């Protein structure tokens, strides 16, 4: 009686959220994705009958602009992930060594940016990189340039903006992974003769791999699915996948291509997440 009731109650409790998520979240997105594979039909150019195919995808990648956007997105995402890891490792080590009294405050300061609107966080770079912005002011002042440089609406600007946006994710992930790494282990390694670099590559890195992978996934996915930062700092000249999507929908009303981009985005995020699961589960069974 008890076990049976429990099962029924469990089902009852998850049902509302489940129905809501499926109907209002999954189905609409699924409809989008499915649409991308529908080719032909009455409004199509060649008058072919409605059928399934990847024609749209081929058409999408046929266009050089689209290819450029796709590769750019991958490139920037990879770069941001790499640099965030490079910066976060030493910073995370420093955080873990902070005395417990200040640890909460330091962590709070790390989390705070995440809670602030991405618009506000990106805006600072507009201020810095703009024609009348800080960097240009300094350059002109020091006589290093004759006229305001175009810094905004460039890949570099998007890169910096995304780095600032997503760094806390990598940082938090590494910190929590390093917290589990006892100080004694690294000390033991150095008593056995390893120098700082060797301790890092042979001890710290392997043992914090999990944190690196989780953080890397979050950052990479965040870059691929970012909108505000590429929109504000890249503009219509430096498009990423999501800003391209927005343009297709609101400017060109090209829903067909938009759906194709949607599929690409979903596949990328699923692939990264699945890759993460595979790596972490193979490690835990190792």
């Amino acid at each position, binding site marked *: 009686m008890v076990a049976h009731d429990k099962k029924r*109650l*469990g089902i009852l*409790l*998850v049902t*509302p*959220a*489940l129905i*809501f*998520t499926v109907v*209002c*979240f*999954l189905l*609409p*997105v699924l*409809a*989008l994705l499915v649409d991308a594979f529908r080719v032909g039909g009455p409004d199509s150019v060649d008058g072919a009958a409605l059928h399934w195919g990847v024609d749209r995808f081929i058409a999408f990648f046929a266009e050089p602009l689209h290819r450029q956007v796709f590769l750019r997105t991958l490139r920037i995402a990879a770069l941001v992930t790499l640099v965030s890891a490079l*910066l976060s490792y030493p*910073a995370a080590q*420093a955080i873990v*060594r902070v005395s417990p009294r200040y640890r*909460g405050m330091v*962590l*709070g*300061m*790390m*989390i*705070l*940016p995440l809670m*602030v*609107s*991405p*618009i*506000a*966080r990106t*805006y*600072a770079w*507009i*201020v*810095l990189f*703009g024609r*009348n*912005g*800080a960097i240009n*002011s300094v350059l002109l002042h020091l006589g290093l340039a004759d006229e305001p440089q175009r810094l905004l609406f460039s890949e570099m600007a998007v890169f910096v903006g995304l780095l*600032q946006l997503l*760094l806390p994710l990598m*940082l*938090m992930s590494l910190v929590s992974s390093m917290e589990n790494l006892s100080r004694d282990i690294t000390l033991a390694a150095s008593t056995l003769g390893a120098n*700082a670099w060797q301790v890092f590559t042979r001890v710290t890195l392997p043992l914090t791999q999990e944190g690196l992978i989780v953080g890397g996934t979050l950052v990479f996915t965040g870059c691929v*699915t970012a909108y*505000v930062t590429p*929109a504000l700092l890249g503009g219509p000249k430096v498009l990423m996948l*999501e800003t391209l*999507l*927005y343009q297709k*929908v*609101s400017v060109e009303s090209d829903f067909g291509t938009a759906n194709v981009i*949607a599929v690409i*985005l979903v596949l990328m995020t699923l692939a990264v*997440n699945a890759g993460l699961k595979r790596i972490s589960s193979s490690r835990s069974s190792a």
Partner: protein
Amino acid sequence: MKEGLFSRAMLWLVFLFLLGPFVIVFLAGFSAGETLVFPPSSYSVRWIIEVLGSEEFQRAFRTSLEIGLLATVIALLLGVPVAYAMSRMPPPGMGAIKQILTSPLIIPAMLVGLGLLRHVVLLVDAPVFLGLLVGHIGLLTPYAVRVVYASLINLRVDIEEAAITLGASRAQTFFLIVLPNIRSAVIAAFFLAFVTSFNQVPVSLFLTGPGISTLPIEMLGHMENSFDPSIAALSTLLVLFTMAFVLATEKLLGISKYM
């Protein structure tokens, strides 16, 4: 020791990188000029005042607030039972259910907005506000589940059994015994969800329309047309607003352990 110095230096660098921009935005918001110049030649509060008085921003703020509160409450109503079921009486197929319920965190939010627009709003001609609300609720529910679940698995089951043997029904046990003991988690979930909703852009992008706009969307629109410091001023206000929110809850409840 040398290694420690390097790490310390990097930490400061990272801090500067992450938090410096806030200072910049802060200063820019107080500039007196017509256009965005940095550093500002002179300072004034005119933009702050103008932004506070702007009708569009006020309306957008109100909308963001309404959506935020409504979506958060409904997300909690949907999510808390799930967290409870997950921790006490997982139904069959829990693994798959968990995947489905956390999918909003993986699916790019913009697609949700687009999907909802095309296949729900346009299809059944629903009011835009509803579409926006639905999108936000879906996004916030996983947060509610995650935070409350973390608290529930640390709550011993035997106190619920004790309540039952003393005569309480399952519902009474939940409201009299479980809820009071996860109170701070529920509050933390509330704040986390609200802030997420308030700052949300991708979902809201396609789901706003004439008269209905959230504050971030309104800000973006404004930025397309003018390059004045008003957005900096508004950003500053928002940052202060968020900071006060977050610091208060961190002080009272310690959110960071639920992240």
